[in-house]
């Protein structure tokens, strides 16, 4: 009973994770408490992210060919496992809707007279088609899109060099330790911690040991985000604190000889492609997980109904965007804690203590 017959090579996993991690993070991160040290907070959060990711990979390597939902059932037993999986599925569902909404909100700022729902439906429709086509298609999309984004990223960096004032990154002892770690925790939980979804994708790797490559992907993506945060601070200084979309505003500054101006469109391109990847991956994990939980023979019929549910949840997520930043800073790290680290760590410890999986019938590895 194979729900997904596709296989992805290891290098595609790197692209997938890079796209997944850097998508919204390049545009909008809850780093406000860290002020000019946002980049340093992100660097610290990479370490936290690596810690999380190594737990996920350790679990994936222990149970090759099993997704998170199957691992839950294997370790915790059918009933408890199903309840925990249900929790994860809710988390994926909510996360997908949250990112979808975030995505839509950005476009309502650029196109203020278009209703939000138009962006949500247009986006989720494309994502639904991608999910219907399976993980292979999403992974191949990620190669194209992430390469494009990396090219644009370095292009942006280059044309902004003129506007940078590195002294704006100083002083280093500007923020209290508490605020600093608040920011780095929040960054970790919204960008690196969410790679828990890849526990649903690791089984489809050609060689399961390549799940280790997710650590490399997290380092690369983390560095890219940190550099973009440093770039934004060096260009905008304290002004950054008043903007909703710092990267968008930073690229508005670009003016190369009255010719290369208004580069914020690049942010939109970045956002369209990376947002698509992120939502697709979450959406895929959700649909696949549900099918596995209910032991269905195919996940295809679940795609559209879940698409509608994600869209509706996206609309009712919050009223105004001003609710989002306090949520991302104060509540989200707590809310995501059990899903991103608590339960995976518990699963890993249990598996190690009980010596799971027991190698009874032959060696699968």
């Amino acid at each position, binding site marked *: 009973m194979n729900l997904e017959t596709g296989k992805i090579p290891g290098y595609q996993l790197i692209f997938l994770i890079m796209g997944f991690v850097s998508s919204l993070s390049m545009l909008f991160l809850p780093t406000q408490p860290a002020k000019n040290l946002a980049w340093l907070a992100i660097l610290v959060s990479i370490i936290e992210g690596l810690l999380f990711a190594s737990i996920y990979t350790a679990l994936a390597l222990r149970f090759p060919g099993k997704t998170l939902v199957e691992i839950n059932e294997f370790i915790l037993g059918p009933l408890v496992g199903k309840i925990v999986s249900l929790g994860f599925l809710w988390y994926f569902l909510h996360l997908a809707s949250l990112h979808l909404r975030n995505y839509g909100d950005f476009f309502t700022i650029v196109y203020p007279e*278009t209703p939000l729902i*138009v962006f949500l439906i247009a986006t989720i429709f494309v994502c639904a088609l991608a999910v219907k086509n399976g993980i292979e298609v999403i992974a191949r999309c990620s190669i194209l899109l992430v390469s494009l984004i990396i090219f644009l990223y370095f292009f942006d960096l280059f044309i902004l060099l003129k506007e940078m004032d590195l002294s704006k990154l100083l*002083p280093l002892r*500007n923020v209290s330790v508490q605020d600093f770690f608040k920011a780095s925790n929040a960054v970790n939980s919204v960008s690196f911690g969410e790679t828990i979804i890849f526990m649903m994708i690791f089984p489809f790797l050609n060689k399961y040991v390549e799940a280790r490559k997710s650590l490399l992907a997290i380092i690369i993506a983390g560095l890219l985000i940190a550099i973009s945060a440093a770039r934004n601070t060096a260009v*905008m200084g304290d*002004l950054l604190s*008043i903007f909703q979309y710092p990267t968008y*505003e930073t690229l*508005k*500054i670009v003016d190369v000889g009255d010719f290369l101006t208004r580069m914020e469109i690049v942010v939109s391109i970045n956002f369209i492609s990376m947002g698509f990847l992120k939502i697709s991956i979450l959406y895929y994990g959700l649909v696949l997980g549900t099918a596995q939980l209910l032991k269905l023979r195919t996940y295809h019929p679940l795609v559209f109904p879940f698409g509608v549910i994600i869209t509706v949840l996206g609309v009712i997520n919050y009223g105004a965007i001003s609710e989002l930043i306090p949520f991302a800073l104060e509540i989200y790290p707590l809310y995501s804690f059990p899903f991103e680290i608590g339960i995976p760590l518990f699963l890993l410890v249990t598996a190690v203590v009980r010596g799971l999986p027991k190698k009874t019938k032959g060696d699968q590895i």
Partner: protein
Amino acid sequence: MNKFSLQIKKMVVLLLVLTLIPFMMSGCWNRRELDKIAIVAAGGIDKENKDKIKITAQVFKVGEIKSPQSGGSATGKPYVNFEGVATTSFEAIRKITQIASRKLYWSHNQIFVFGKEIAQEGIEKYIDFFVRDHETRLMVNVLVSKGTAHEILTTETDLETIPAMNINDIIKDLGATSQAPQITLKDIAERLLSKTSAAVAPLVEVQEINKKKHARIAGTAVFKKGKMVGELTPEESRGYLWVIGKVKSGIINVKTDDGTKRASLEIIRANNKINADIKDGQLVITVKIKEEGTLNEQDSPKNLTELPLWHSLELLQAAAIHREITAALKKSQEYNADIFGFGEVVHRKYPLLWKDLEKQWDELFPYLKVNIEVQAKLRRSGLITKPISPSTEE
């Protein structure tokens, strides 16, 4: 048979996609065609009466912009100034739609002028909209008028077609004399956010030449907490620019031959270094300027390129720079406006101490000790090495 039906199925899907694409490509939700928008080239804001402001928006009249070949048959001015009066910036801009046939489009706005009264009252409450709105740009050049913004936007132009372009190009060339800063909305906003640093903006005035009103740069407006508190003369403005390292070029005049003759030196490059130190419990700011210039004009019959004279010329140049900086510093301390951003320098060097200093900065800044060290060099003397006069050595 099965293969055939699959092909038909594929054809149907393709047809469906092809018919759907035109619907998607028809454009944005609220698209606006070029002939339905009024492109704003400059904005101005003035005080109308006690609680109302007047926004002036200068709009291209596309039909009137003639190419040079078609001759001067233009019947009217190639621009039109719309005015809207209301209590807030946004409301005033929207009111313009009641008199203009098209909706204003601010994305190509080049300059923004504040009238003096508005500047003295405080600009922060009026610029909020321009930072917040998605159509306006942060990189628009900001100026302060010595009179009203409206009179600046109705000045005559000779080379350019409309005043907005004229003033914008003047601002872009400010580096040639370095006697007023080029300031964007972003710079102003950044300074307004700071608790200690004060904002500045180039000052522009109307000058009558041959009974035609022309716009002219006349120094720098100094703000304190968003309110204009004073002005710097062009010389003091360059003193300010020396300190912040924004002098690009310019002319320094020095007196030679015991004050009877003059020499003009061109500034080629300059850089700055600001450092904060605490000596004996007292905060001292050190400003180091390194400058290179060339001798571009002299009316003395002596050969100034000869070594002792050349060195004295360098010293005179350094003294002139020192004088300009001192003048700017004195003015800023008089206004108690930290236009140089010394507070930020201290903040970066002593982040822990700064928490206390920040609160007292208003009391500290007027009496702040600032050391100015200028190192000026002359590198070249143009294409000739001797003055155009008979040699005096014989």
